[in-house]
C-alpha cells in the first residue's frame, strides 16, 4: 500500500463547476494483481516436476497483459493459479505470493476462494464447447453465475443485457438455446457473457480464439477490446500467437520452460525483441507480404517439463549460447526502463 503515499498515486483534478482543485487517488497506478516469485510443482518429493519456476508479474487495474509461449511453457498453469484453480494435489504451490488487491490468494480459505473464482477474477478458455454444460439452456447457465456472485440481479433481464453486451443477436430468444445450437464464435460470446456477469476486475483469457477461425477470431478480439474500454477491467491474455499481442496488449511477458524470459511493453517488444528466444520466435513465423527466403527455424524441440536443461533453459537451442550459459540460470534483469530480459548477452546481435 506504499503507493498511497507516493506522489505519483494522486491525480490533480478540477471540479467542473466550482473550479476547486482536488486530489483523487489514481487507481490505475495501483496494482490489481501482484504475482511474486510463484513456484508450482506437480507431484512432491523426489518426483516433483516444476511447471512454474519463479514467475513474477504485476497487472495494473485496466491493463492488458499478454502471456506468450509455446505449449508446455507454464503459461496456462500461471493463469490458473491466480484463483488457485490448479488443484493441489497433484499440484503443489511451493513458494511465492499471489496478491490480489493486496490479499494473498494462496493463503485464502476455500470459502473466500469461491467468492474470488468467477467473481473478482473470471476465466474464459480455449474450447467454448467444453466450457458450457451441454444439457442446460445458456440463459440458465449465465443466471447460475449471477446467482453466485450477484444474487439480487439473477433475472432474465440481466441475462439478456449481458448477451446484448457481448453482441449476440436476438438475445430474447437465444436464452432458450442449448450450446449445441450455436456456432463456436457464438458459444465463446456466451462464455464471455458468463465471465462478465460478476463484473470482474480481472479477466483471464486462456487462448480464447485458438479454436476459432480467423474471421471469428477477429470478431472476438474486437469484442474483448471494446468490453475492456467500456468496463475498464484488466485482461490477462494467454496466447501462443505473437500477432494477437500487437493488437491487444499493453505489456507482454514471454515464457519459456516455466520462466518468464522477457517482459516488456508490447509495441517495443515487437519492434525490437531483446531475448534470443523472442528474436528467434519472431523470425520463425512466416509474415504476410514477407520475403520468400528460408525461414529461420529454431533447432531442436521445446523442452518438456521435468527435462529442463541446466542453466539457461534456452541455451541448447540458442544461436549465441556460450559455455557459461549452461552453468547458472540467468536472472531476469531490467536492462532498459520497463524492459526485463533473462539473458546476460542480450546485446549480442
Amino acid at each position: 500500500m506504499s503507493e498511497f503515499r507516493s506522489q505519483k498515486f494522486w491525480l490533480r483534478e478540477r471540479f467542473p463547476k466550482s473550479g476547486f482543485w482536488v486530489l483523487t487517488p489514481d487507481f490505475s497506478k495501483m496494482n490489481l494483481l501482484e504475482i511474486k516469485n510463484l513456484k508450482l510443482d506437480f507431484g512432491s518429493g523426489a518426483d516433483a516436476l516444476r511447471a512454474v519456476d519463479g514467475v513474477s508479474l504485476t497487472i495494473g487495474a485496466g491493463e492488458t497483459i499478454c502471456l506468450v509461449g509455446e505449449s508446455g511453457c507454464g503459461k496456462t498453469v500461471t493463469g490458473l493459479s491466480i484463483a488457485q484453480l490448479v488443484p493441489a494435489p497433484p499440484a503443489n504451490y511451493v513458494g511465492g505470493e499471489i496478491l490480489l488487491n493486496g490479499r494473498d490468494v494462496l493463503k485464502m480459505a476455500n470459502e473466500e476462494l469461491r467468492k474470488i473464482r468467477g467473481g473478482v477474477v473470471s476465466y474464459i478458455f480455449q474450447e467454448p464447447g467444453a466450457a458450457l454444460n451441454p444439457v442446460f439452456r445458456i440463459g440458465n447457465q449465465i443466471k447460475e453465475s449471477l446467482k453466485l456472485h450477484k444474487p439480487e440481479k439473477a433475472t432474465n433481464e440481466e441475462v439478456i443485457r449481458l448477451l446484448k453486451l457481448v453482441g449476440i443477436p436476438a438475445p430474447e430468444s437465444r436464452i432458450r438455446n442449448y450450446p449445441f445450437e450455436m456456432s463456436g464464435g457464438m458459444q465463446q460470446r456466451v462464455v464471455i457473457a458468463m465471465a462478465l456477469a460478476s463484473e470482474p476486475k480481472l479477466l483471464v483469457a486462456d487462448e480464447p480464439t485458438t479454436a476459432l477461425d480467423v474471421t471469428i477470431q477477429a470478431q472476438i478480439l474486437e469484442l474483448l477490446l471494446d468490453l475492456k474500454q467500456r468496463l475498464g477491467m484488466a485482461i490477462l491474455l494467454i496466447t501462443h500467437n505473437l500477432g494477437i499481442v500487437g493488437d491487444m496488449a499493453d505489456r507482454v511477458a514471454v515464457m519459456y520452460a516455466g520462466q518468464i524470459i522477457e517482459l516488456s511493453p508490447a509495441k517495443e517488444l515487437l519492434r525490437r525483441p531483446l531475448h534470443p528466444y523472442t528474436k528467434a520466435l519472431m523470425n520463425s513465423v512466416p509474415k504476410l507480404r514477407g520475403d520468400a527466403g528460408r525461414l529461420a527455424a529454431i533447432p531442436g524441440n521445446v523442452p518438456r517439463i521435468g527435462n529442463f536443461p541446466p542453466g539457461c533453459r534456452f541455451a541448447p537451442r540458442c544461436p549465441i549460447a556460450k559455455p557459461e550459459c549452461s552453468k547458472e540460470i540467468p536472472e531476469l534483469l531490467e536492462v532498459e526502463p520497463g524492459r526485463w530480459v533473462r539473458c546476460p548477452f542480450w546485446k549480442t546481435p
Partner: protein
Amino acid sequence: MSLLEVKNLKVHFPVKPGLFSRAREFVKAVDDVSFAIEPGETLGLVGESGCGKTTLGRAIVRLVEPTAGSVLLEGEDITGINGSLLRARRRKFQMIFQDPYGSLNPRMTIEQIVGEALDIHRLTDSKSARQKRVIELLEAVGLDPIYAQRYPHEFSGGQRQRIGIARALAVEPQLIICDEPVSALDVSVQAQIINLLRDLQQQRGIAYLFIAHDLAVVEYISRRVMVMYLGKIVETADAKTIIREPQHPYTQALISAIPEVDPETKRKRIVLPGDVPSPIHPPPGCPFHPRCPIAEKRCKMDVPPLREIASEHRAACHLAKPN
C-alpha cells in the same frame, strides 16, 4: 500436360433426416471445383473450417468418393478406377495429415511404418535393401536412423510429422497432398517442417497441394493460392498477388483478419458479421452475400462465376473489377 487436373469436382454428402428415410438433403462439401497443378509446383488451398478444403484433398486421393466430376492424373482419369489399378496409381500421390499423433500406428516401429509402403508397392527385393531404403528416407527428413526401431510415442510432434513425411516419400510420389501439416505443431517447430517440405520439393521436384488455414504460411510456401468458401473456389491467383491485391471481398476480409506481428503495419481490420452459413442450406446467389460488406441486389440472385479479372487471377464476384 498438367500433373493433376481436377474438373468440375463435386462431393455431396447425404443428410438423413431419420433412420429409414431416404436422404432428401445434401451437404455440398465440394461444389463444382476445377483447377490444375503443374509438376513440381505448390498450390495453396486456404479457407475456414467447414469450407470443404479437407474433403477436396481427400476426394483427389479417393479417400472419399467424388459425387461427380473427374480427377485426371497425368491425363488419366482416376475417379472410375478401382482395386489393384487404383493401388498402383496411388504410388504417384501421397498424403500428409494434420495430426502427427493420430496418423501413425502406435504399435508399429518407425521402420515398419515407413517400410510398409515399400512392401505394398514391392519396391525393394531384399530385407537389406528395404532396411537401406528406410535409413535413406529417415536421413532425408532429418531423423537419425538409430531411431528406426522406436515407436511413435517416443517422438515429439515435429519428429512424428517428419516420420509421416518419410512415409509419404517412400514411394517417390509426384504429388503430395499436405492437409494442415504444421497447424498442430509448436511455432518454433513449424518453421523446421516448412523448410523441410521446401527442401524436398527442390531436391525431388514433388508437387504439393498445401491445405492450410494460415494464410501467411500458405503465402510463404505456395506459388499459386486458391481461396475456398462454402465448397466453392472464390478466388485464385499467384501467391503474392492474392495477398497484395485481393479482389474478392472474402479474401480481403480474411487477410485483414490476420493479426500481424509487425506493429508498424496498422491497417483497417474488416470484421465480417455472422458465421459461415450451413452448407446444407447455402444462401441463394453468391454464397458470401449475407456477410459481404459490398453486396448488391444481384448478388442475392445470381451465382457469380469464377471469372478471369487479370491474367492468372480469377475471382467469383460480380463486383470484382479487372485492374
